[in-house]
């Protein structure tokens, strides 16, 4: 059941009705409803993997109680390791097992031994495993670091782990934010519900109009990169930049908007990363919940930046490499992470990694300065270049793609694989960037205009665009579901 499907729409209506009208009076029954509907939502893909969520929930629920109940630091740590080993073990088996086997076979063959691997397994990757394992682990970490008291309410904890709006692709919530809301009585708030609907609309726009409409071109260019000139390859990776942003931030907006309908506030996951002025700012704006997770549970425990420069650089490199690996069991993602580490470290060494933390481009003016324009374009260029690794099938393909850009520079007009007018898409991207620039100060209010008429016209244009770019024959699942 994906957000942009009729099944989800009907499911949402039913759950919403039951939540606010039937189970309104009891927090417990509301949480049971969240749990049941979340399991139903997840089971729609493959009910067999519900057991993994349940196991992960039970383990971290018990681990947290054990950690909290022990004063002995060594015992506490041992319990924390139980959580880490279990969750990372789950990920390791379902997501990385074949990667490790294949890599080992490749490494051995480089050394001259030709072995035929019989160890690889036909393992299906459970949807959202990287997200919910990280979420449950964060709970155990927070209890371990004494930032949180564990809950004894198993049902509420299970609802926190499986909360359907953010179950399969985040935002990865910390218990201090989401669990605390699930444990409290939620009241219907008109303003919150309206904001939720607006975010859902904007998320659908980003997913259907931006991501899905660009996908055929990106797929075509990456599949046939060897036949295209450099200009087309650059176009392909640039379009992919917009596609992946539209897809993932669209999903996050729908998730946040849906949660709002149930009186729950999720953390922001995207803050207009395309207007970042350096790579460090980009990581404060792109997939924020994952960056925050790595900062809190990997970077800071390693010493963060409160250590020698050399160690800090090491810590940054570790975080980016793990982050890359988190995205997928492929060397392409590790290279992608390494590339970002290389782009981030100079910014860190120059002490510019936090200078844009609390500001946006053209903070107090309508137009950005020329310097800002240059910074934004450079950052966008770096990030877009890194996406060659992110999108390519293999590391060999990624390097061939890059090689073709640099060694065979020529221009040729690109034609849409289905023959559609390309100008439609260029205009669409231009207007999209322009509109996001106008709303860049608040990622949670995409229609923040004073005039009701202006707002209404924008709603209708957004919905019209949904129709103009809707493709009934297109596979509409989300890119980040594979992670």
């Amino acid at each position, binding site marked *: 059941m994906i957000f942009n499907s009729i099944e989800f729409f*009907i499911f949402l209506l039913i759950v919403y009705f039951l939540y606010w009208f039937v189970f309104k009076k009891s927090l417990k029954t509301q949480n049971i409803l969240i749990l049941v509907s979340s399991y139903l939502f997840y089971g729609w893909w493959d009910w067999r993997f519900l057991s993994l969520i349940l196991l992960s929930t039970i383990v971290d629920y018990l681990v947290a109680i054990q950690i909290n109940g022990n004063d002995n630091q060594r015992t506490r740590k041992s319990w924390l390791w139980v959580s880490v080993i279990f969750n990372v073990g789950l990920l390791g088996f379902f997501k990385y097992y074949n990667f490790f086997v294949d890599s080992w076979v490749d490494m051995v063959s480089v050394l001259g031994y030709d072995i035929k691997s019989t160890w690889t397994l036909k393992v299906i990757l459970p949807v959202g495993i990287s997200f919910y394992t990280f979420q449950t682990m964060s709970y155990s970490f927070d209890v371990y670091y004494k930032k949180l008291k564990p809950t004894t309410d198993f049902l509420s904890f299970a609802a926190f782990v499986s909360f359907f709006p953010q179950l399969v692709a985040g935002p990865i919530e910390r218990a201090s934010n989401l669990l605390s809301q699930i444990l409290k009585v939620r009241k219907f708030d008109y303003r919150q519900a309206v904001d939720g609907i607006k975010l859902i609309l904007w998320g659908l726009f980003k997913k259907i109009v931006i991501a899905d409409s660009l996908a055929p071109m990106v797929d075509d260019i990456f599949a046939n990169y060897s036949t295209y000139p450099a200009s087309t390859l650059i176009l392909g990776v640039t379009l992919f930049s917009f596609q992946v942003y539209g897809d993932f931030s669209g999903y996050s907006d729908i998730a946040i908007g849906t949660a709002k309908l149930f009186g729950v506030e999720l953390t922001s996951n995207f803050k207009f990363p395309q207007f970042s002025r350096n790579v460090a700012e980009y990581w404060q704006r792109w997939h924020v919940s994952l960056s925050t997770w790595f900062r809190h549970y990997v970077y800071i425990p390693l010493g963060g930046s409160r250590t020698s420069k050399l160690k800090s650089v090491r810590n940054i490199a570790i975080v980016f490499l793990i982050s890359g690996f988190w995205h997928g069991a492929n060397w392409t993602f590790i290279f992608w992470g390494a590339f970002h580490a290389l782009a981030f470290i100079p910014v860190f060494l120059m002490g510019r990694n936090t200078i844009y933390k609390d500001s946006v481009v053209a903070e107090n003016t309508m137009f950005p300065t020329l310097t800002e324009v240059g910074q934004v374009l450079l950052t966008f260029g770096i990030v877009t270049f890194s996406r060659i690794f992110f999108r390519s099938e293999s590391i060999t393909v990624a390097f061939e793609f890059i090689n073709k850009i640099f060694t065979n520079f020529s221009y040729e007009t690109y034609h849409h694989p289905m023959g559609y007018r390309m100008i439609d898409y260029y205009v669409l991207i231009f207007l999209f960037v322009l509109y996001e620039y106008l709303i860049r100060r608040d990622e949670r209010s995409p229609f923040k205009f004073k005039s009701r008429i202006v707002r*209404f016209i924008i*709603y*209708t244009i957004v919905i019209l665009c949904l*129709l*103009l770019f809707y493709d009934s024959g297109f596979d509409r699942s989300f890119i980040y579901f594979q992670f």
Partner: protein
Amino acid sequence: MKKLFFKIFIYSILILLALEVYIRVFHLTKDYPVRYVDEFGVEKWLPNQDGFSVTGNRRQNFSEYHINNFGYNSYREYNPSKDKIEIALVGDSFIEGFHQNYYNSLGKKIEDRLEGKEVYEFGYAGYDLADQLHLISQYKEQFALIDYVILGIKFENDLTRGEYNIVQKRMVLESPLYKAIRQIKLFVYLNNIGVLDAPKGLVSKLFSNEKKETPKLTKLEEDKRRKESETKYLDNFKSLINTYGFDKTRFVFLLDSEETPEIFLNHLNENNYKYIDFSEAFKKSKKPPILIYDMHWNNNGRSIIAELIANYIKEMKSI
């Protein structure tokens, strides 16, 4: 909560109205001409209608149609006589040509290639051979004056029946309910771009009794089934020819031999039926002959067909 529902209701209505306005102003969806069955039992368009045919979400193909006095899409009126040379094109939506401006139709392209000849287009979406021969027999006086009659035929679509009946499924589209629905351009647009496919699919899934998937056929079974239908279609062809007759001196088929089974081509050859085959010409074309958004011939495709027909007529005249 009441306020939320009230506002959602109001906004939904206003948004639907705004979308209806946008779709009408930007002409995002097609017009539907009215169809009827005339006094001779021939289904065709109600005479003297004008409108636009639109394909794709973003008006990727946009053309104008004009239904003439006779009830077919054409820039000219039909007045056959002994003094002139006329060519009739009879067929389905490919001949009808709603996908191209009526003033640049297949008939017009043929006329441009054959000076002084008049081309009458009897194209109607869904016409099969039974419809075509029934039309010719009902208007036999007019058709007797026409010098060449080209019948567009696609074996797998146009020979599914061996006798003529009015197709009620098409005429249902003229019921008051359908007519009323077609007035809502937003609905027409949503339906045409496939937005309604998902809810329709869901409803049919919910209410469908068929739970089992159709079993996959083996290649042998598929071949057997194909042969059976080919034989049946050929029998239908023979039956229609027996019923309506076929003037081999004036009538000629227009077909794609690549899409036509050998059994039918052999039958045509053995019985001296003439046909114009556009398969080779389409294959040789450097530009695509088919529209991007549907399977109909584009401008290039129509030019190729026009060229073939014009050459055929020239050849026939010289004989």
